[in-house]
């Protein structure tokens, strides 16, 4: 188990370095191939040659990518020092650098925005897990019924409708129209009720999409499990139907669901870009979208790293969890 974990963590570290290199590559090499000098997009309308040159130096456009990646990781573990134009700044570890645009240190941006995204992802996950699994189980037990067909139509629409559509619809109805919910983000530290009010629509919107997927998966898995011999055995023992479904069938159904949940949460932690954009939630997804628009590499790198770490950890947790849930699985 320990050897397994060490091996996995090592692989994850290699993966992270590769991911960061790819981001650097996209940022620096692609414009170069397109024959565009990206430094000019950082100096405003009146391009001063000194400014362009300074930006080139600041962005490290002259350094090879390997050096830049090395500096980046060095900054995270031991900090790094920036100098340019007589301005020397030491950035203590964990140093993710400074935003090219707003000049703020990236690490506080990440730590400031992370709770928003985490709150969004976890809250939505609770909702979609409860709703999706309940709807899926009910559909499976009432297969072919009106409920089943109705639920699956709703689920299909949930899967196919984009967030910015359902999100705007939710806002239009509940926030602008009926005015039941304000729908503007309020930090949890300011007001619990306000936070809840700001998060409920994003939760519902995000949960709608995922609940739909989870309902479909739950239904299919449950139907498959209900056909298993060991379910018949459970009934043959004289177990009540509640125990047969709630214990024996659910235990097996939850395995793929938990795997999915782990992966989805991992991906969402990196930022639910569409949801955060639609609801103007100041989370990581909004930050990274803005950063991409503004070519703000340090923010992009920071969020990418967090996302990658989250996904890799989620993968690991899912694998370990799998071994816990399913005794047939061995970690090796």
């Amino acid at each position, binding site marked *: 188990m320990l050897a397994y974990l060490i091996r996995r963590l090592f692989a994850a570290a290699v993966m992270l370095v590769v991911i960061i290199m790819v981001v650097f590559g996209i940022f620096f090499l692609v414009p170069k191939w397109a024959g565009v000098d990206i430094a000019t997009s950082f100096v405003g309308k009146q391009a001063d040659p000194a400014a362009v040159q300074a930006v080139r130096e600041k962005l490290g456009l002259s350094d090879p990518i390997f050096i830049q990646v090395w500096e980046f990781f060095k900054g995270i573990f031991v900090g790094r020092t920036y100098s340019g134009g007589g301005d020397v700044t030491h950035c203590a570890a964990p140093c993710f650098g400074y935003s090219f645009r*707003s000049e703020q240190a990236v690490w506080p941006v990440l730590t400031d925005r992370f709770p928003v995204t985490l709150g969004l992802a976890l809250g939505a996950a609770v909702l979609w897990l409860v709703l999706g699994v309940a709807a899926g189980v009910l559909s499976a037990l009432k297969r072919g019924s009106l409920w089943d067909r109705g639920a699956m139509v709703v689920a299909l629409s949930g899967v196919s409708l984009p967030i910015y559509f359902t999100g705007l619809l939710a806002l239009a109805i509940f926030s602008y129209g009926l005015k039941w919910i304000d729908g*503007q983000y309020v930090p949890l530290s300011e007001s619990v009720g306000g936070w809840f009010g700001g998060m409920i629509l994003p939760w519902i919107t995000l949960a709608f999409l995922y609940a739909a997927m989870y309902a479909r998966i739950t239904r299919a898995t449950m139907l498959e499990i209900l056909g298993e011999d060991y379910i018949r055995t459970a009934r043959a023992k004289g177990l009540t139907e509640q125990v047969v479904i709630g214990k024996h069938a659910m235990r097996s159904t939850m395995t793929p669901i938990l795997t999915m949940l782990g992966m989805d949460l991992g991906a969402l932690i990196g930022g639910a870009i569409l949801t955060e954009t639609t609801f103007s939630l100041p989370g990581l997804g909004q930050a990274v979208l803005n950063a991409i628009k*503004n070519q703000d590499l340090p923010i992009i790198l920071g969020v990418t790293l967090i996302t990658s770490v989250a996904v890799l950890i989620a993968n690991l947790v899912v694998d370990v969890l799998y071994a816990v849930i399913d005794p047939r699985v061995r970690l090796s």
Partner: protein
Amino acid sequence: MTTQRTSGRRKQALAAAAVVAGLLTTAACGGGDSDGSKNGAAGFDAANNKVAQASLAKKGGTLKFGGAQDADSWDTTRGYYGFAWNFMRYYSRQLVTNKTSAGADGAKVTPDLATGLAKITDGGKTYTYTLRDGVTWEDGKPITSKDVKYGIERVWAQDVLSGGPTYLKDFLDPDGKYQGPYKDKSADHLGLKAIDTPDDKTIVFHLPKANADFEEVLALTSASPVRQDKDTKAKYTLHPFSSGPYKFASYSPGKDLTLVRNDAWKQSSDPVRKAYPDKITVKFFSNANDLDQRLINGDIDLDLNQTGMSPQGRTVALKQHKGNLDNPVSGYIRYAVFPQSVKPFDNVHCRNAVIYGADHVSLQTARGGPVAGGDIGTNMLPPSVPGAEGQKYDPFQIAGANKNGNAAKAKEELKACGKADGFSTTIAVRNNKPVEVATAQSLQASLAKVGIKAEIDQYDGSQTPGIIGSPSNVKKKGYGIIIMGWGPDFPTVQGFGLPLWDSKYISQSGNNNYALIKDKKIDGLFDQYVNTLDAGKKTEIATEINHKVMEGGYYLPFTFEKFINWRSDRLANVYTTDAYSGMYDFVNLGLKSSK
């Protein structure tokens, strides 16, 4: 009550249905506000070039801005967005600034930190100001002439503080001899020779060459004082040290910004700012539709960006809340420009052929029509700039006889160009501006009718300066037609047209003279302009430069841009100003209630 609610809900259902139908319009709230009342909206265009509800402004309250975009920088030296300059007046003062009046009068310069306008001597090469008594920083210390000098010196530190306008540097030290305060070896870092500070109250500017717009440039926020011990260099944007009536309380880039009263500021020291509200908040939205809806709902008082509402919000607002809207001229001209390096646009007749061949009404429609898009542009000087003639000057009959295109005339010009059968070219357009793409398509369609085959190349809009700002790249890609827009940095022909039309401004990167105009007459007129101190004469020269540009056929203007801006019922003392291209003048906005 019950019935009303039911009908409201039914309305919601209808609105939801409209959304489902793909309109994605935000739901219409059933608010029946009575327009024109004291507590209600002032009426359509009530604040356009005039002051609305000035007497209703009360001290106190929280003024709420919302924005889809944060400033490029809140550092007075580095910001270049018009709304940022406008907003900076809350926390920064200048020697002189634009008048806080509506319309054209707002473009005039008035004393701020200085006791009066400049004493100009030495044939327009020396400007002397005296600072007022009682002007202070947010910690109560007095603002000195050295602080003003230091703030201006920061413009030279382009290697650290890039992004802002560099007029001050161009005017005071065109050869770039000074290295900026950070590389300044002198003990006080005040080594810039062009500025003298004989005492804490006096500041003297020595221009190597006279420039008639120097005082206009001093009115830009990039001439704000900065105190050396508070200069955090690149990070100054995160918390600029206030010299104005408000100071930074908190700022998270892209999230929110809160200003609170600067208690050290004294009304008696400031002839310009009224400082009505107690607090000013800005919230950033990543969804422009959401922002518009918040404006309509009254959660937000006005749009920080002042670029007009999005099409959906605009439609709803025009139908139901017209009294909250103003429809000012933005100062921007939207146009197509023809780089002479790309054949056959080296020939004026081929350029003229495009101008005649275009359907100008269709281009105006693509921009949003007469209300949201603006009047058909007939020449290249924005109506807010002195010397502009508006649609009265229309050498190509763009808004007149040829407004739907004149194919016969276009073919005539093609023949004169030696391309009787037409030619092929490429239209370059930013991919992140749907409206510009629409104009490109309109142009493509009308040009096809006269035999000009134009392909549209949508390039990465975030890379604009690197792509169309590089003349070699433009030539390589064969961009014969570039779709762009331009607004004045300050409302004079120099503030608008110098980077676009003067041959000295052609550069290999970040170029703005896309047409590559090398006209000795135009260069000469600009030289003459900067040496002219008489306002009437300046205006004449501006008119003449505009005529020369139009006669060259370098540009096809689309619109004199107009936009639709929202002001909430709560706002008082609202007016648009030419100083900031038709935006509301932020600094003196007041609220009707201090709540």
